[in-house]
């Protein structure tokens, strides 16, 4: 991977649901190896931007390039190939309810690799240990707490050692301790493996603790209103909306 090619480049992206425009003319780039946060208030299109980045939605206009490849030029098969290099942690974990934790984490491995079962089992146990869930292999998702589901989802997202990991609201619905644990896990994986992280969040703790760079979306302009290091933004930004969001104030 060449360092000058961004891991993800979003160019002039416009997103619509039916006739409602969610995002308009959004341009941003995620550098390889960084922890990149998409932040903003509820309903400003954060998750929509994320789902465009992973190719679940097709842009109404503009394009999304992953490792320099325009997603819209790929056919279904090539898109599948591209997605093998991505892991996604959905808001609720999105574990398959009819499968045990072990089967959930093993799922991408048994589908996309020709590894023997014994090796797959060892990888699964390794990934589960990485998110502090060793020993929980035989439980079903319904038997887990919200935080455990998220961590299990993370283990599954990392099963194929993706180059980019996406997180949709990782700290939502978690108590402060679980949230801090997840933060620590994310940082550990990022520094340990150099995996690029793209995280959607409005949790200020998470933003200031782990983000290398953020983009702030705004529902009124339907686009990015600030970009950069969150600490620096808080110090230097003159934009009322940015100050309000990052300082959690109503009057700015």
């Amino acid at each position: 991977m060449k360092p000058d090619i961004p891991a993800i480049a979003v160019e002039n992206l416009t997103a619509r649901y039916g006739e409602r425009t969610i995002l308009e003319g959004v341009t941003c780039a995620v550098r390889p190896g960084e922890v990149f946060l998409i932040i903003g208030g509820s309903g400003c299109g954060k998750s929509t931007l994320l789902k465009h980045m992973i190719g679940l939605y097709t842009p109404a206009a503009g394009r999304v390039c992953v490792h320099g490849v325009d997603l819209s030029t790929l056919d279904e098969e090539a898109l599948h190939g591209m997605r093998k290099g991505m892991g996604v942690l959905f808001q609720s974990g999105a574990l398959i309810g009819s499968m045990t934790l072990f089967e959930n984490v093993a799922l991408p491995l048994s589908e996309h690799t020709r590894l023997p079962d014994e090796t797959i089992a060892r990888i699964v146990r390794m990934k589960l240990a990485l998110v502090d869930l060793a020993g929980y292999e035989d439980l079903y998702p319904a038997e887990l707490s919200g935080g455990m589901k998220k961590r299990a989802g993370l283990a599954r997202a990392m099963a194929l050692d993706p180059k980019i990991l996406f997180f949709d609201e990782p700290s939502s619905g978690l108590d402060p301790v679980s949230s801090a644990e997840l933060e620590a896990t994310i940082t550990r994986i990022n520094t340990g493996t150099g995996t690029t992280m793209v995280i959607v969040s409005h949790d200020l703790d998470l933003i200031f603790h782990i983000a290398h760079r953020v983009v702030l979306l705004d529902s009124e302009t339907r686009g990015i209103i600030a970009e950069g290091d969150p600490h620096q933004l808080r110090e230097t930004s003159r934009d009322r909306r940015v100050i309000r969001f990052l300082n959690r104030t109503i009057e700015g």
Partner: protein
Amino acid sequence: MNRRVPDPHPPDTSGRPSRRLSLQRDTAGTGGLRLSVSGPLDRDAFTDFLAEWQALLPDIDAGRPERIAVDLAPVSTADSAGALLLMQMETDLKQRAIAVDFLHASGDIEAMFALLREQSARTHAGPVRTDGGNLLVRVGDAGVRAHQEFVVLMTFFGEMIAALADACRHPRSVRWGDVLVSVQRAGLEGLPIVGLISFLLGLIIAFMSSLQLKPLGAGVYVAALVGISVVKELGPIMTAIVVAGRSGSAFAAEIGTMKVNEEVDALVIMGFDPMKFIALPKILAAVIVLPLLTLYADLFAILGGLVVGVLGLDMTAQTYIHQTLQGILVTDISTSLLKAVVFAVLIAGISCQRGFLVTGAAEAVGRQTTSAVVSSLFLVIIADSAFAIALHYIR
């Protein structure tokens, strides 16, 4: 602090609404009026209060004051309905160009009144919902929507047929474990209800027809009547209805919930085709189960008829079975099995498709589950009619 304060306004026991508003000339001599408000200013008092206020308006008009002082000192409690009343008074007086001062309001009432007044004054240009428009627009919209839904449905059935063809070419790629689970749920666990319904159905047909045929001495034909009607028509249809209600709804609800939980998105991201991963096993299970259930239903219906034949028509079991077998042709059984396969594909297909249509939350799961069952029944009866016509011309 549990001092009991004597209630300044004891409940009115006379049954007559107590007066809450009283109007006096202002003693300060400013040419204004003084209105004193008393009692609780809350939800329970709202209607009486409003009526009293409106009755008072002509008096106020007659007095033509420049300003009115509203004395709130005797008000014991107030809630948002009370604040609304005060706002109503304010608006009414403003329309008459009369200034109003609220006096002696307790801190609580004043704070709440101020908050509600301020918040109500805020007007947001919220999202505008355009619902329908005139009849022509709505009909046009419905037409466009129906067309879009039809395209989505046909695309789904196209993909489904491709997936089925692919499954035939590469049977090892099918998730047979999931197929077995669905076979168990849709088939094995459905045996009691299918058996019961079919048995009673056969019994009823035999009983009703025996009442007609026995006086003519044609009771022996009851066996063939039950056999033919059940094998050709009622067996496949009844089984399809039960499977649509039991399993079609289950398929739609399961897939819909997976959609809500983002499990479907997660599968797509992991490189799985949701059609092959989730829908195909269910469709295959239905295709396996429905013909077997249909045969089972046929047997139980004939058994029901046999009970009537033996007990009510004095036939021996052997005669009844012999008569039944004489009535049914092998082609009847094979076409009924073919029907069952077609019904299975339709029921499982439309139910899975409805499941994938779920967007949003729990409410959508319920709506699409209902739609799955209704559409299944609709498609089954349409297909059955098509079979009836086609078979008539083939013979």
